[in-house]
Each structure stands twice: as structure tokens, then as C-alpha cells.
């Protein structure tokens, strides 16, 4: 077993940003474990532009260029690629395997979990119909088109209208794949307008709101999808279906382990210092929740690195007593999930939340039943909600609660 100051699991924006911050601070006994042959994370697979705004002094970049910048910025911190983490254990122990050397164990005085997210595939959505070739996620489509330069199908239906769904449209256009339709169950698209206007008028894609995918047809290859709109069934001929979004934290290495997960986010529950239930483990990036921009993940990586530096010097406050942060519907989640009752040396991040459906009203932050903050809001699913935490945690508080009083 080799021991390090910090072991970082995952070489995406959050993990690489933390590595950079540690290096800059002179903490160099750090390794980044990355299962792919190159670090960079999901941006590696995103051939379109828009990355790195406000982060590097540069124009927005395409994903792969951004990923390379992230790697260069780590100032020579060791990145072990092709290294798969198979499990974690108390004591900061991380089980890995590598194609050439086989299984091994590494340990860190601090371990940062930054394994990111994946989209929910068709199977977990319980869609009716057959299971032919030609059903993918945006991520898989991007890998086909940008990494292996292949075209898995020629006419596809895109399911979902999150931000990533429009990335699927751009990817399809790049590969010359015709998009037969974009489906949205709700009455309006999930991503910010004018995404639908661009889809319709720039990319020429029919965006069907109020439309549900009923079934996939075809034995070996996709032949068609059945949809339901306005109470009527219709069939759309296509040879591909792209399920987009509904991101889930990639917790595969955690679930058989000992780290407490939050059912709301699907990721590890953290305190305001990004500490997991096992205080030797920290978490950052999209593993914390579905789903934020690479820029926000990068910013989190910087903050969590600062906290790990304090932890290495035993300067982070004790973990207990901690005050749990509760919430009620239509809020889907709020994180951090607990506030350690001592105000520490580092500033606390804001609370972040999401709703599970569109809602408007007054968003309130209550401490021991007393309103500490409130704000009028008009909330939509998959939009970031930020609640200031600068007055948290009050000494001696028993409960922190976030709620929405709907109009």
C-alpha cells in the first residue's frame, strides 16, 4: 500500500481543480486516479464550445480543449490514468486496479471523491417495448461521434429537453444524424429558453412538448417509437433513440461502502466543508448532485482543496455537533445536508437546492423555526437555486429547514 496526503478519485473538472489548488499551495504528495486513458472528464466527450468561460483568461473553448487545459493546469500533480477504483474503505483506503499491474491499495490522509455523473439510461426509465440496437444516451452518442468517429444511426428521436439534450442535437448535427423529433413530457422545455427556438428555427428540429414516449419498436434495430400527445398515439419512424439528461451521481464505488448517501441528491451527504460521513473523505463536483456546469465543479474543487489543506493541518472544526438541513416538497434536495455547528476558519458555501416541478412562492430558510432569510422565487426544475449561508450556522441551533411557501 502506498500512502499519500491526498488521493483524488476522478480526473474531471472538480478533481483536477482540487489537484491544481493543492499543488499551488505546496501540497504535492497528491495522486489523481482516472479510469480513462486521459483525464478531463465529461468535457472530453463534448465536441461543442462553451467551456471555460470566466475560468481561464480565454474565449470559450470546445470540451476536449478545455479538458486539456484542466490537465495542464494541475502543475505536474501525478495523474494515474487507466486506473479503476473498485472500492473504498475506512482509513482513507482506496482499492484500485490497473491493466499492467493489477489490483493495489492506495491511501490518503484525505480522499476526495469526484466521480461525477451519468445520464439515466433507457432501462432504468422502464420504457415499454423491445431492446434493439440504436438506443443510447447523450454521453454514448458523444463518444461515438467525437471519440470513435462513428455514426450509430441516421435518424433519431431525442428524449428530454434539458441543457444536455441540446448538446445531443449539436452532436447529432455534427455527425449528420437527422433528428426526427425532440420529446418533452412537460408543457415547456426544461432548459432555458430560447433553446426550443434555436432547436426549431436554427437546427430545424420539431420540439414536441406535452409528449410522452410510450414504446420503442424494432427487433434488431430501432424501427420506430410510439408517442402519445394530446391523448393520441402516433408513430415516428427512426433508427435511433437518444435518452438525454436525468443525471445521477456516479456512486458505484460508494454503494457497497460506508459513506452515507442522500436520497434526494443521490450523492454523498456532506457538511459545509464538503466532508462526507467519514471525515477522511471529501466530495465535490457533480457527484454531489445532478447536475451543474463544469465551471461550478471547478470552483468547488478549489474550495474543497482549501478545506482539505486545513484538514491536513487539523484546522477544520470538529464534525459534531452537526445540524441536519431538512426540506419539504416541492424541493427535491438541499445540500450541504448538514452544518457543523462550529463556525470554522473557512467561509461556508451557499446552500444549493432544486425543485422537482415548476413552482412559485416564497423560499424560506428557517433556523429552529425562525425565519433567517426569505426571497420571492419562480422556480423551474433543473435550475440552480442558491440560498445564502453567511449567517449559518448559529451557535446552539437544533434545526435548519428550507421550504417553499407556494402562492
Amino acid at each position, binding site marked *: 500500500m502506498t500512502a499519500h496526503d491526498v488521493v483524488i478519485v476522478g480526473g474531471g473538472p472538480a478533481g483536477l481543480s482540487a489537484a491544481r489548488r493543492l499543488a499551488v499551495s505546496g501540497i504535492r504528495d497528491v495522486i489523481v486516479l482516472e*479510469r480513462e486513458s486521459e483525464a478531463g472528464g465529461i468535457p472530453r466527450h463534448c465536441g461543442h464550445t462553451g467551456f471555460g468561460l470566466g475560468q481561464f483568461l480565454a474565449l470559450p473553448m470546445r470540451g476536449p480543449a478545455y479538458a486539456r487545459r484542466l490537465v495542464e493546469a494541475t502543475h505536474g500533480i501525478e495523474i494515474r490514468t487507466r486506473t479503476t477504483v473498485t472500492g473504498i474503505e475506512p482509513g482513507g483506503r482506496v482499492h484500485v486496479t490497473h491493466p499492467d499491474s493489477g489490483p493495489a491499495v492506495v491511501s490518503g490522509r484525505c480522499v476526495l471523491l469526484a466521480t461525477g455523473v451519468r445520464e439515466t439510461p433507457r432501462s432504468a426509465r422502464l420504457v415499454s417495448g423491445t431492446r434493439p440496437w440504436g438506443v443510447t444516451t447523450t454521453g454514448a452518442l458523444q463518444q461515438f461521434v467525437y471519440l470513435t468517429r462513428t455514426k450509430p444511426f441516421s435518424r433519431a428521436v431525442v428524449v428530454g429537453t434539458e441543457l444536455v439534450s441540446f448538446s445531443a442535437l449539436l452532436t447529432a448535427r455534427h455527425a449528420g444524424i437527422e433528428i426526427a423529433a425532440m420529446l418533452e413530457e412537460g408543457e415547456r422545455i426544461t432548459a432555458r429558453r430560447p433553446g426550443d427556438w434555436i432547436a426549431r428555427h436554427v437546427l430545424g428540429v420539431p420540439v414536441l412538448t406535452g409528449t410522452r414516449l410510450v414504446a420503442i419498436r424494432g427487433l434488431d434495430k430501432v424501427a420506430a417509437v410510439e408517442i402519445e400527445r394530446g391523448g393520441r398515439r402516433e408513430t415516428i419512424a427512426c433508427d435511433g433513440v437518444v435518452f438525454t439528461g436525468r443525471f445521477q451521481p456516479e456512486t458505484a464505488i460508494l454503494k457497497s461502502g460506508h459513506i452515507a448517501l442522500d436520497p434526494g441528491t443521490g450523492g454523498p451527504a456532506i457538511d459545509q466543508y464538503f466532508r462526507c460521513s467519514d471525515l477522511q473523505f471529501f466530495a465535490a463536483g457533480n457527484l454531489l448532485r445532478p447536475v451543474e456546469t463544469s465551471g461550478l465543479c471547478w470552483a468547488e474543487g478549489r474550495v474543497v482543496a482549501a478545506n482539505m489543506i486545513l484538514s491536513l493541518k487539523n484546522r477544520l472544526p470538529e464534525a459534531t455537533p452537526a445540524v441536519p438541513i431538512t426540506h419539504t416538497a416541492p424541493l427535491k434536495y438541499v445540500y450541504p445536508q448538514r452544518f457543523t455547528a462550529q463556525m470554522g476558519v473557512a467561509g461556508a458555501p451557499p446552500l444549493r437546492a432544486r425543485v422537482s416541478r415548476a413552482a412559485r412562492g416564497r423560499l424560506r430558510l428557517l433556523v429552529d423555526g425562525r425565519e433567517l432569510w426569505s426571497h420571492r422565487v419562480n422556480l423551474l426544475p433543473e435550475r440552480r437555486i442558491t440560498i445564502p449561508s453567511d449567517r449559518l450556522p448559529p451557535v446552539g441551533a437544533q434545526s435548519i429547514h428550507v421550504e417553499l411557501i407556494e402562492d
Partner: protein
Amino acid sequence: MSYDVAIIGAGVVGCAIFRRLALGGAKAILIEKGADILSGASKGNSAMLHTGYDGALDTLELACVRAGYAEYREIHRHLNLPLLETGGLLVAWNEAEAARLPAIVEHAHRTGLADVHLIDATELRRREPQLAPAAQAAVVIPGEHIIDPWSPPLAYALQGIAHGGEVRRRTAVTGGERTSAGWRLATSTGPIEARVVVNAAGNFGDLVEAIARPSPFRITPRKGQFVVFDKPAARLVRSSILPVPTERTKGVMVVRTAFGNLIVGPTAEDQEDRAEAAADEGQLRTLIDKAIRMLPALAGDTVTAAYAGLRPATEFKDYQIEALPDRAWITVAGIRSTGLTGSLGIARHVSGLYSQNFGGLADNPTPIWTPVPNLAEHSPRPHQQPGYGEIVCHCELVTRTEIEAALAGPLPAGDLGGLKRRTRCMMGRCQGFYCSARVAELAAGRLPDLPVRSAA
């Protein structure tokens, strides 16, 4: 080229018969219309190694299940096939069901399973603390275990090939005529001559039977849908949780898989279509609800996949197996739901029929063993040894060496489904989010139907 025997259908039953007859010295050919073995009924089942505790007495099915069970235990190590010894618990969820348990135990004893016994709610709770409080009592079936649905038939087919057999895929039998020597089968890839034909055509059994005679049975495919929970869910049970059966089916069970998941199923829905095993959202949700009623802690767990299989049911309860000596034909049909366990027993029975009617088979005292790569989680897998190339499928930790091996050898994967069944790639929680492009790249040129073209 003329063969002693042509077996139509490379499901688990066809593969096992192919193996047994080839081991006995017959020159055998296994014909499959799909792109790979296991393209039909055998690709989706519950993967149980079944004791036959509930089998009807004095039936061929029970005899074959018992013989198949015994032979699997005997040969599985030689072929590197898994055996996850979970045991089964048949659980009563109300008093009416509890009242039926003693009869189930008594029946199991009459089938020869002396170790089957009753336990009360307290003992049940001790063994399975996660079961819902409604669980009243249970029958313990110590020998009811888990195997994997795909590697046994592959190993049987490979052993048949090692003993001089031939497997021809993408070959649909379209008709046949009697010759002085036996049969000339018309197929989509040209005629095949054989002394004897074995019909093991599964869901197409009655259609193939019509080549030899008006079929005395009709196949009505019975669809069984399953939901696969992600691996952490497997922590919730140790044994296979079985229901008190009804007239029609064994009912919905919750069982672990050799791959480390937990599955719930099957449904039992009759349908006319013989090829399309479509999943249905409503049925899948019903299965999930049933599973959560049995195991409340499952409520927070995620679903990895859902699948549907078609069982070749006939209007008869028992297997339809018979030799027609004057037609040089052996019928093997109606292998509904016990085929995975029963296949080795069925193969022995068919080998007996063959010897009696068409000439003796030798008993090979030193067979060639053809071990297959291990797919099960409870035994070592390639990613635990250096030199595996790369991990291609991160969810199931499938290595490049495994994928390359599955695309080579005497019976390489015939299509993407075959590659998935040989390696588990793309079958994990992300269902190809990360690996489908890489898998397609590795398989390019070797899986002819992979519809991948160069991007513009």
C-alpha cells in the same frame, strides 16, 4: 457433408443435446437461425439451478430436472461454470399461504428432497431480517441455487465442437425431405443432410415439427418480464425468495444473480408473437411494487435494467419429448421454464432415445473440457489480474482481453447481444453510457450487423 444428427435450435436445450450426442461420438451439427446461440427463449430467464421441489411426480420434466441438477453439480468446475449456493426460501405472506406450506414440504419429500423443511416466522426473520413483517413462515429448500444463464450453454456448445461437432448460425431451417439415409433439410444457407433430426426449436417448435408431421402441440409463447436492481440491492437477501406457487406459474420471486444483482420476476403473459419480447412499463412497475412489498428496504434502490423472455409453453404441462423412429426424428418441445436446469437431463434422455432408435453412442470416459471465462462476481475475474489491457465496461469491470476473447475462438460472438452475453459488457448500471462506443470500436469488422458507419 452428411451428419449423424442435426439439432435445430441453439438454445440451452439444443446446446446440451449437441454436447451429449457429440460426446457420445455422433457427428453432430447444431443449426441456429439467429446470429448467435441463445437468440430466443434461453436468453432471458431467472438463472436458477432448480431442485424440482415443486415438480409433478412421475413426469419427464421432474426426471430431467433432477438429472440435470446432478450433472451440473458434477461438471460445473470442469467447465468453469458458476454456482452461487444461496438456497431457496418459499415464503408465505398470509395465513392462507401459510396453510399450504406443509403440503409443499410433503410434496418436496415425495420428489426425494428430504432436506426441505418448514421454518417459523422467528427463524425466517433471523435468516432474512430485511423481509417485510407480513412474512409468516417459509419452506427452506437448501439446494435451490443460482447459476448464470449464458455461460453454461456456451460451454456445452464449445464442448460439442471440441468433440467434432459443428455449429452453424444465421441458418434458418425452411423445410426438409426424407432421403434413404435420413433427412435433407432445406436451410437459408443451403441443404444439410443428416441421418436423424432433433427438433429443439423452442418457440418455433411446432413450426419445425410440421416438417416431420402435423404438430401434436401448439406453442403459445409465455412472456416473462424481469426487473434487475443495481448491485447494492443484493445485500438485502441471502436466499432466493420464492412465492407460494399458483396453478399457472411459480410466481414472482426475488433472487440474486451470479453477476451480483438482484432480480424480481417473472411475469407470465401469453402472447402470439414468437420473437418480440417487449417490456411493458406498467408490468415492470407492478413487479417493482411487489418486490418492495417483500423487501421494504429496496424502495431506495435503483433499477439497472429490465428484460423480457419468452418461454415456449404448449397446451401440455409436461415436456413434449419423443422419438419417431420411422421418421428419423426426435421431438424436444414445450421446455417451458425449467430448461436451464433440465437441459443436461433432457440431453441424457435424448441420448438414450437416440441409442435405442438410431444406433449406439459410446460413453466417452475422457472428455475434453472446454472451460469458459467466468462471468460471476463470487469468483475471480480478469480485472483482478495484471495484463488485462484496459477496462472497457466500467460498470461490470469487463476488460479488453475478455472482449477480444469473446470475439475469437471456435464460437465467437455472432452479434452484439452475443458479445454482451459472453462478457456482460454494456449490461451494467449505465447500460453503455461509457462503453458502447468503445465496444463498437473493438468489435468493428467482427460483428457484421453492428450498424456503425463512419461519421461525416
